[in-house]
């Protein structure tokens, strides 16, 4: 699919790639947004100087100020510290979901696309059925059965997105498997699993990487939706959806409790969507 093989004899290749990245505004903007979130996650809520769980009744319902950049909640807790902790939760859920979706989906997709025939048919019928569920609906049903927790929610979202990765992987493997270099590898007697891992595998990564960013954004939205409905990350752990849910009871007292968590979710998801669109353009095989 995407032939990115470059030899050291092309001195300008890095420079050319860098120019291509810089020229891709969506990729750069999305990348910067993601970096800011990652930085906030690494330094943690402590950077605000407040403990995200510490209540201070005298300081409750405050608007943005120099002391509390995003204001405080109904217990006087610093909203920025809670939002940063919420970012840890959201990105943890996103990473675990994408990890499970990718590993499961790539394995199923690779087997279906490479082996073909009856096994392909069975695997694809199962993925079709799972794809037919609206993701949030399936997540709600599964969480209702297993009970809410950060890990459960991450695993459930990951499982829900396995079929998407499987579909994309299968398509990519089938497209690659018919190419001449695969036939050549077969002709020289390479074992099928070697061909799949070392030849076809790397060539299928572009669409999988793009899908991973999209699924990361979707996982964040589903986690926030579940937490908003009281079916996601259980309180008192702050999560973006849970914070928005709490804010509904105090809308007339402090509008900022609803503004900042929602804005943060939107910026994070927008950043990931931009990154996904940018990567799609950047990795587009037509450019090579």
């Amino acid at each position, binding site marked *: 699919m995407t032939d990115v093989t470059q030899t050291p004899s092309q001195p300008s290749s890095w420079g050319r790639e860098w120019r291509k990245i810089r020229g891709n505004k969506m990729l750069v903007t999305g990348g910067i947004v993601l970096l800011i979130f990652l930085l906030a996650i690494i330094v943690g809520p402590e950077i605000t100087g407040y403990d995200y769980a510490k209540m201070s009744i005298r300081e409750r319902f405050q608007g943005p100020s120099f002391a509390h950049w995003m204001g405080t909640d109904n217990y006087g807790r610093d909203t920025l510290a809670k939002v940063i902790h919420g970012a840890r939760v959201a990105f943890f859920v996103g990473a675990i979901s994408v990890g499970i979706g990718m590993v499961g989906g790539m394995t199923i997709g690779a087997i279906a696309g490479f082996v073909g025939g009856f096994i392909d048919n069975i695997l694809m019928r199962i993925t079709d*059925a799972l794809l037919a569920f609206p993701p*949030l609906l399936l997540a*709600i049903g599964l969480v209702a059965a297993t009970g809410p927790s950060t890990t459960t929610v991450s695993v459930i979202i990951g499982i829900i997105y396995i079929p998407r990765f499987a579909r994309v992987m299968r398509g990519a493997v089938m497209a690659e498997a018919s190419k001449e270099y695969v036939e050549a590898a077969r002709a020289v007697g390479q074992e099928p699993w070697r061909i799949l891992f070392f030849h076809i595998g790397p060539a299928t990564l572009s669409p999988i990487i793009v899908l991973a960013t999209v699924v990361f954004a979707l996982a964040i939205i589903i986690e926030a939706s579940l937490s908003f409905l009281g079916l996601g990350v259980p309180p008192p752990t702050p999560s973006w959806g849970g914070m*928005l849910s709490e804010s509904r009871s105090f809308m007339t007292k402090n509008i900022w409790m609803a503004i900042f968590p929602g804005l943060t*979710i939107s910026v994070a998801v927008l950043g990931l969507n931009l990154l996904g669109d940018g990567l799609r353009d950047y990795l587009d095989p037509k450019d090579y």
Partner: protein
Amino acid sequence: MLGYIINRIIYLIPTLFIMSLVVFSFIALIPGDPVDAILGLNASEEARAAVRAELGLDRNILVQYLSWAGGIVTGDFGTSLTSGEPVMKLILEKLPATLLLAFASILISVFIAVLAGTIAAVNKGNWLDIGVLVAALAGISIPVFWIAILSVLLFSVHLQILPSIGYVSLLEDPILALRHLALPSICMGAALAGGIARMTRSEMIEQLSKDYVITARAKGLSPNEVTYRHALRNSLITVVTFTGLELGTILSGAIIVETIFAWPGLGRMAIDAIFTRDYPTVQGVVLFMAFFFVFVNLLVDISYTFLNPQIRLGGKK
């Protein structure tokens, strides 16, 4: 054509079967004894036996599935543990509210999105196009519950022009019903519009570059006639198909929007059932919504192929 439709319906059978297995597994996934999860540990032995019998938990799991699936085939989705009424009856009571909300939000989103997408395509590359693209991407990224909270804050709390919760039947009081419908449908419409606008834009750009458009221009038709009478009309097939396939987003959005606006539809019914541990109702609503989604996809698929002469006339797809 008929062969194609029959094929598509046969193709659905394994999908529906696997979907039913997934929904059936909800009870099997409950950690420990499902009766404890439903009634708590202090329930009387009679109550426990009644729930056990209702759910068929005293039988072999295969028999449980066959009995449950047999009921589904005949339209029996089980009995609600909280109200004691058939789940199907409850679903049919709530369905009109969800359909009304879905229909209104589709109308709003298609109107906004087709207009915005067309303006963007006609002005490709300039600031109007960029503005629409940014707005569409924002629409996709902003979660529907945040739009809902902000709109309640603005229209109900500050301006006090629209009610923030509740439902009134259109037959009872049409004006009041529309006022109650406004905020939920605008929120869901806004969440849908981003994707449809992007689709309209890309489809319109493709149509506007086709030979028939060049011919129409060469014939001396005005730019508006070329855009709206020819290119837009041809783009709408794809846009309508895409909108139909977005039903998953609508159903997911309905769960959240109905909960926020206390809208008595299927989404709110599912959430209420989860909190009252009414598992037969959870299973029934989830399966009904999933089947509904699959059948609408089938209808969209069939109508699309009907509009595509290659398939309608028996040629290759």
